[in-house]
């Protein structure tokens, strides 16, 4: 490896020369330039580089091959890219001019190569440029052999023999087929029939087969199948006669008729149904795939004959012209069920009132198909039209709940409102329809119902989660809704369905949420899958220790099932773990150690902190702030401090990040007023803050002392900050620049609150009272205001009571 690296390093400058004419560079330089570009990222890069190598072959090839280290060192990949690349390049007919030179280079290289694996590799390259070897054709057996095989009694050998014989003697094909059909060996008979089709085509043997047909036993079935698949209408007669059979042969004939198509077969199949033949069911199935238009035939047959199977066909083919007949057949006991089922296919909006009438009076068993029919009748209307029509019906019927599914199916806002109201009014059957409705507005309603009645939670949660998944765009709100769903669900199956949906939300926090369900046996398997899925898809950083912990758990859960897909998943997980990088650990400098600084956050350890440990999460050596806007989301030191030097590094991940450091603060208060102060952390360069007041810019003692305005580093880059607090004195240094250095008691002339006790304080810059300003001690906090801040390397020098 070393050799290649050194060449690449020394010649990385030579890449500048890249693009120059290859002839002006030495071959060594060309090779090095190319290696620096391996593997080529696209076809253009590939061509330019390989053209250079090819133009300088054989020397370039010899040099490259000479660089190969023994294969066991595992260091040859770039050379392999280059060598295989040039071989592929010159193997292209468009670039074959250099082929001989490359081959020459390879020949020299093979002779010089000492490593067997490399030698084999170079041999493969030589072969790639060699001639295409002729593929040896299997010798055909002699006629004598073929005939012997046919008598062998072993079906596969008989088949091969028959094929050879028929191929050699086309005149004997018909005879061979007939004898195979008569042999009683269907496996053999079918093979021979197939060969005959291939060698002379089915029509050529049709008459011979037809003559023998009467004497065939079970092979008749094979012949009829053969007629069907070859669409041999000349043998229609055999199909007709076979339709009289009620067993396998009859079924084969039905299928053949279906494939042959035409008026006659259609009439035959319909007649099987009308006569209630044992083949009626097969005929009905066949008519669905019939080779031709069956609509008129089915409609005519239905007009003549009241038959459930004809009704099914009418429904499937949407014979709206037959709707009156179908409504009539609802009243016929033998066709009642089939007619109701067919209504969905044959009705149009003008039939809707009639369907609603039936539905209102229907026996329970007919309700579902009639509801389906109602949806079918209205399906050509727009959602709004459908809702309006249904809304009118709702007032006319005795059982409005039977219309709810159709109402839900409209998916309109009005439908959500109607069904929500119905449920609230005590019509519990509205819930099923609320669960079916596809509209974002139903989401909060479902949540309300699930919260109010825990017994309904498991019924509601899966739908709730899937709608959230579909409609909620904000990933964190989505994650929060899934968390809500998981906490509402009782049954493990339901939890698992939510975990599954959660798996498609690739964020760091959804990873943490899914990970919590790895330890419960009932949810472990799904949680493992989701954890894997999230980790593989997320572009967000996940803390290394947590990532590894959860992925290892997931791997052991998935590995235990022994299932193939799970095995693949385990391998994928192992790869992810191997590729993840451990968290960097921050350390005190030698000088800080000497001075007595203490590490408060080194990258992983949150043990010196309290408060919102959900919102402030260690991610790969940093505290990642994800506290929600407006929440209490504050992180506090465990210890209280009086005087101190506080150092940390921060970095903004998105524009407009807002946070702050609370100084000498009690827990759970607004540090800007009830602590000594809040030192502002703010991306004040973001356009949204262009009207910022000066006491709000980064580093300001909020509301009391404006800081000198700095220009922040670009998003994603780290800044250092030091806050020194001694008595009433506070000094803020950012990136080495002092931006606040003041005595805050003096700044407000000793009036942290208005002397007159009012809420307006003329002595502070923001005109507000700061009752905590003279606190003697308190915690140090991060005051969260939304996502996007990273903090690391937090250190403190406790100065105690020292001034």
């Amino acid at each position: 490896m070393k050799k290649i690296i050194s060449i690449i390093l020394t010649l990385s400058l030579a890449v500048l020369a890249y693009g120059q004419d290859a002839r002006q560079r030495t071959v060594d330089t060309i090779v090095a330039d190319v290696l620096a570009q391996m593997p080529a990222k696209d076809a253009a890069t590939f061509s330019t580089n390989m053209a250079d190598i090819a133009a300088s072959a054989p020397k370039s090839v010899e040099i490259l091959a000479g660089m190969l280290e023994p294969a066991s060192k595992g260091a040859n990949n770039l050379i392999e890219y280059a060598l295989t690349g040039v071989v592929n390049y010159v193997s292209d007919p468009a670039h074959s001019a250099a082929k001989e030179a490359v081959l020459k280079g390879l020949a020299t290289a093979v002779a010089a190569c000492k490593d067997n694996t490399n030698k084999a590799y170079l041999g493969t390259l030589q072969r790639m440029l060699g001639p295409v070897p002729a593929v040896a054709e299997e010798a055909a057996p002699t006629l004598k052999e073929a005939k012997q095989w046919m008598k062998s009694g072993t079906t596969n050998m008989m088949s091969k023999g028959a094929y050879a014989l028929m191929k050699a003697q086309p005149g004997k094909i018909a005879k061979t087929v007939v004898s195979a059909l008569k042999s009683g060996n269907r496996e053999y008979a079918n093979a021979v029939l197939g060969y005959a089709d291939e060698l002379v085509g089915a029509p050529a043997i049709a008459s011979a087969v037809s003559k023998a047909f009467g004497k065939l036993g079970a092979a008749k079935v094979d012949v009829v199948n053969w007629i069907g698949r070859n669409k041999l209408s000349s043998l229609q007669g055999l199909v007709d006669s076979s339709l009289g059979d009620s067993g396998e042969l009859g079924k084969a004939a039905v299928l053949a008729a279906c494939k042959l198509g035409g008026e006659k077969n259609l009439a035959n199949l319909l007649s099987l149904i009308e006569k209630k033949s044992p083949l009626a069911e097969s005929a009905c199935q066949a008519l669905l795939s019939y080779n031709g238009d069956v609509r008129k035939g089915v409609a005519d047959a239905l007009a003549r004959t009241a038959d459930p199977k004809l009704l099914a066909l009418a429904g499937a083919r949407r014979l709206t012209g037959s709707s009156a007949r179908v409504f009539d057949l609802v009243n016929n006991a033998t066709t009642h069920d089939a007619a109701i089922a067919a209504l969905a296919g044959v009705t149009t909006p003008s039939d809707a009132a009639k369907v609603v009438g039936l539905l209102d009076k229907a026996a329970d068993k007919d309700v579902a198909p009639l509801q389906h029919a109602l949806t079918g009748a209205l399906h050509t209307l727009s959602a709004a039209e459908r809702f309006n029509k249904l809304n009118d019906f709702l007032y006319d019927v005795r059982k409005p709940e039977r219309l709810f599914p159709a109402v839900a199916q409209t998916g309109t806002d009005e439908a959500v409102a109607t069904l929500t109201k119905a449920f609230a009014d005590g019509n519990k059957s509205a819930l099923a329809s609320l669960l079916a409705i596809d509209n974002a507005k139903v989401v909060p309603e479902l949540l309300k119902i699930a919260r109010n009645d825990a017994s309904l939670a498991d019924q509601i949660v899966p739908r709730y989660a899937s709608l959230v998944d579909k409609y909620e765009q904000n990933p964190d709100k989505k994650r929060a809704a899934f968390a809500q769903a998981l906490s509402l669900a009782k049954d493990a199956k339901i939890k698992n369905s939510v975990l599954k949906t959660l798996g498609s939300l690739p964020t760091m926090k959804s990873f943490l949420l899914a990970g919590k369900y790895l330890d419960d046996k009932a949810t472990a398997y799904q949680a493992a899958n989701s954890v894997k899925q999230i980790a593989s898809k997320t572009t967000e950083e996940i803390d290394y220790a947590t990532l590894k912990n959860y992925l290892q758990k997931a791997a052991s859960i998935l590995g235990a099932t022994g299932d193939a897909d799970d095995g693949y998943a385990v391998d994928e997980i192992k790869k992810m773990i191997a590729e993840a990088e451990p968290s960097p650990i921050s350390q005190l400098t030698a000088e800080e150690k000497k001075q007595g600084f203490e590490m408060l956050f080194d990258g992983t350890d949150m043990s010196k902190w309290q408060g919102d440990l959900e919102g402030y999460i260690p991610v790969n050596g940093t505290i990642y702030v994800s506290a929600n806007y407006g929440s209490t989301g504050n992180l506090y030191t465990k210890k209280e401090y009086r005087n101190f030097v506080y150092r940390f590094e921060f970095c903004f991940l998105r524009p407009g990040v807002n946070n702050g450091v609370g100084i000498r603060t009690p827990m759970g208060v607004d540090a800007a007023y009830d602590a000594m102060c809040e030192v502002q952390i703010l991306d004040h360069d973001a356009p949204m803050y262009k009207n910022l007041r000066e006491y709000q810019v980064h580093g300001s003692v909020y509301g009391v002392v404006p800081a000198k305005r700095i220009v922040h580093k670009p998003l994603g880059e780290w800044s250092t900050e030091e806050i020194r607090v001694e008595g009433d004195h506070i000094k803020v240094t950012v990136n080495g620049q002092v931006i606040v250095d003041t005595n805050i008691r003096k700044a407000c002339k000793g009036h942290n609150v208005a002397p007159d006790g009012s809420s307006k304080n003329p002595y502070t810059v923001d005109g507000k009272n700061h009752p905590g300003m003279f606190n003697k001690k308190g915690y140090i906090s991060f005051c969260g205001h939304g996502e996007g801040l990273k903090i690391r390397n937090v250190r403190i020098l406790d100065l105690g009571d020292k001034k």
Partner: protein
Amino acid sequence: MGQSRRDFIKKAGAGIGLFTILPREVMGKMGGDNKFVAPSDQMTRGIIGVGGIGMSKHHFASDERCRLVAVCDVDQKHLDRALKAGQERFGTKLQAYHDWRDLVYDPNVDIVHIATPSHWHGLMAIESARSGKDIFCEKPMTRTIGEGQKVVKAVHDYGRIFRLDTWFRFKDTFYGLGTTVEPLKKLVSSGLLGWPLTVRISGATGFAWKFYWTGRENLIPQPIPAELDYDMWLGPAPYKPYHPHRVHQTFRGYWDYESGGLGDMGQHYIDPVQYILGKDDTFPVKVEVDAPQQHPDAVGIWRSITYTYEDGCKIILEGEGFESKGKVPYIEGPKGKVYKGFECTIPNIMDKLAELPDPEPRQVDFLDCVKNRQHFALDEIIGHHSCTVVNMGSCALRLGRTLHFDPATQKFIGDDAANLLINQPMRAPWASMI
């Protein structure tokens, strides 16, 4: 191979029996109805390769229609685990084989189930056909186009029944598409979308290309574990020093054995498309790739692979991370588009389709096919066609250039190096077996 062979296949593709409109749980089952099966009607099956897929609950199964009687693996741990599972799950002492040929020659085995890495599929299928066995083969069907041609010939010559194990052309909603293939087939055959069509198989239309199946370069040789017969595992593949990443669950990342996510998922995704487009009897004439340069050993990623048929139809594969942005149709024609979940730009499409016949019935119960000697709905010919689409893609990736293909001769046009990839050398003694 003349035109008649392909025509025969096309015609023979559908057989007697179940119809495609049957509920999906009835179709394609290995068994499971409750009627008594006489022992003489019972079929038997042996699995070669009981590592991953061979041990899955669908395949490592035994019932009264078809009994599992034998297993084979070159990893003793796999074999021991399968024997134990056979005892526990079926109360059977399975016949164990180390050499797959012994399983293929075992007279007690009717059906050979090939569940090895794909560099073995061709050889095993051919030898099984010669031995009078019917064949149930995992996808992708073969690692090279040439092996596929030879499997087709062997199955044909010896009159065998073959099933390739992917199924989206006849059951299940396929992947992210949210629909079974049938309405798509009906829609396309109806001509309502116009012609030619472009099919996009991409994350944007609901398909994942599993780019985690990439190989590693610079593998440092490792000692071969005692339980593994590595030489037999490699079989026809070139000898390369052992590294655990080459074998078992990660083998797909190496060109010697498969072709990464393309090999893993390609046939699942492309086979239904060949059916939908009515291309089961032909091949694309051109394949173009947009990809970083590929390593000779380790499979890498790609941005897109585009296939073009003679009539202008296209299949575009978009690699993970390189998907089209926005709402992208799965199938696009001059007169209409269809998206995930069968969302179609043609108004009232379901009503229009209701007027048309359903697709021709197909035989989708493999055991019935074996019993009645009928072609399975996804037989060796159809399997070879869709697998060749996959393998054309890997040839173009490896060479890093556009390739032109002649469907009649099944060879690349004017490109010797590409044609060398059609029939790749095999190690002794396996070269003489194919």
